[in-house]
């Protein structure tokens, strides 16, 4: 990959080193401007409540304290530990569903021959464009009639039916790149479609499964609209809903606590980013992702 990058044209500059330095300065400046707000939030979360506002745009608190974290954690009737646990359970179950269902379906589209495959594939791609608002209200009526409002089922169960076509598309692209000779040889040996899927395709597809899992986890973790609609009782809240209640209940007096909880809510995403950013970026570059 680096070789390809290094062959990029220099656009005929006569002072490559000088322009190189200028370019780094510009890029570092942009990075700084982009990251500054996040650092400001982090710094704000470490300040005492009295100090936070009054237009201090600096990053250095006069006094560092973690009281915003301990106060914020217990700032609502139910503490944030419960919200984090809820979010974690929902995100993990949703991720398992997405990866499992999407890989089964993608295997069918990429590898099996059956009547109507092209038709279903086109329909599946069509749902990529469909805004979820159009299914929102009937789905709500459906889940309500099942008595699932204020439970996590509406947030988890649809993923086991591969409703997010994006993941199917991502995996189809990858599965098509696996040499067909592998499954043809296995079929000669009498392997069933299931065994080929389980023993050949899945083990060779770890990168794309990981990419799908990571995006699925992050999107579920960050999802606000779904929990906002379906979850009403605080003990079932996700972290995002907890933050929202915190804004409503605290007003402007305890912004440092709100910042502290906001920072904590980003920590899981940030950790995933640190460890898996390569997979994330390749996932986007190869398929073109919405966000």
């Amino acid at each position, binding site marked *: 990959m680096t070789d390809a990058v290094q062959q*990029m044209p220099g656009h005929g500059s006569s002072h490559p080193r000088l322009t190189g330095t200028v370019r780094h300065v510009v890029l570092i400046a942009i990075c700084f401007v982009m990251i500054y707000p996040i650092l400001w*939030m982090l710094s704000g979360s470490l300040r005492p409540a009295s100090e936070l*506002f009054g237009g201090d745009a600096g990053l250095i608190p006069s006094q560092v304290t973690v009281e915003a974290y301990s106060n914020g954690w217990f700032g609502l009737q139910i503490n944030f530990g419960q919200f984090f646990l809820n979010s974690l359970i929902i995100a993990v179950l949703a991720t398992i569903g997405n990866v499992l269902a999407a890989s089964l379906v993608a295997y*069918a589209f990429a590898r099996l021959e059956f009547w109507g495959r092209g038709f*279903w594939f086109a329909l599946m791609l069509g749902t990529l464009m469909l805004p979820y608002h159009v299914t929102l*209200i009937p789905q709500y009526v459906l889940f309500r009639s099942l008595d699932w409002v204020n439970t996590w089922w509406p947030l988890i169960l649809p993923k086991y039916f591969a409703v997010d076509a994006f993941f199917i598309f991502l995996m189809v692209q990858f599965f098509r790149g696996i040499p067909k000779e592998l499954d043809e040889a296995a079929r000669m040996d009498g392997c069933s479609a299931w065994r080929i899927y389980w023993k050949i395709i899945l083990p060779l597809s770890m990168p794309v499964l990981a990419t799908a899992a990571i995006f699925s986890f992050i999107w579920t973790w960050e999802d606000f609209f779904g929990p906002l609609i379906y979850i009403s009782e605080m003990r079932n809240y996700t972290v995002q809903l907890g*933050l929202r209640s915190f804004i409503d209940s605290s007003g402007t007096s305890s912004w440092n606590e709100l910042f502290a*909880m906001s920072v904590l809510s980003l920590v899981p995403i940030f950790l995933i980013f640190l460890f898996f950013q390569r997979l994330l970026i390749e996932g986007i570059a190869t398929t073109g992702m919405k966000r």
Partner: protein
Amino acid sequence: MTAIRRNGAGYLFLSPWLIGFFCLTLGPALASLYLSFTRFDLLNAPEFIGAQNYVRMVTADPKFAASMKVTLIYVVFSVPLKLAFALAVAMVLNRGMRGLPVYRAIFYLPSLLGTSVAIAVLWRQLFAADGMVNGILAQFGIIGPSWISNPNYSIYTLVVLSVWQFGSPMIIFLAGLRQIPTDMYEAASLDGASPARQFWRITLPLLSPVIFFNLVIQVIEAFKAFTPAFVISGGSGGPINSTLFYTLYLYQEGFSYFRMGYASALAWVLVAIIAVFTAFSFLTTKYWVHYDD
């Protein structure tokens, strides 16, 4: 016999999606199309009222007009700015430079965090009357307005938030730029073409499929934006409807006022807008998108 078995295996693997498609996508979509012609408050059975919801939208609903205006402003400002910025940074990055993976990762981070409530909380405070932005302006002796609570500015704070997340189209641009053969630039340089001319005659045409893709995706996403407007305005879309995104209005109608028939109609208008936009974009591709044969 084998054909039947083959079909059976195919449909077995397809079955999760088929069930989901019929029960959670197609069925509900058709149901909401029907509901859009009814009055429905969730407690009583839907009452068929013909096209009244749609008529009311265009003739007697100032909030619909307001939300449409806000959303169009958001789309028209945020998408071109975001894509221009993404392309500019991608072009700076795209020249075999040291630290590329690090820069790319840092630029991408806001895209990853961007839709969470925490970032909307942060934005609300950045642009508050006593927030960071005004703190910086004060260093230069400028007294900034209260961006969030001023209806003239509030929508533009959301535009800035969107542009801040330029990382993911940037990565797609980077991948596209890498596909352009370097010898085209070398030949152009030998012929004395200036960098600006190379950009207009080589980079832009060859990148146009990627630009087209990014444009369609980003416009659709912009129409669907919800969380930042909800958090910044406390769910109201205020001040004076200035951040009343279309999806926020749809949410209010459906889940605050339980006018679910009307909300369904709003959803189908959104589908129509996205469909018309997408179709229009595809129709215009022959004039500006360059595909290799």
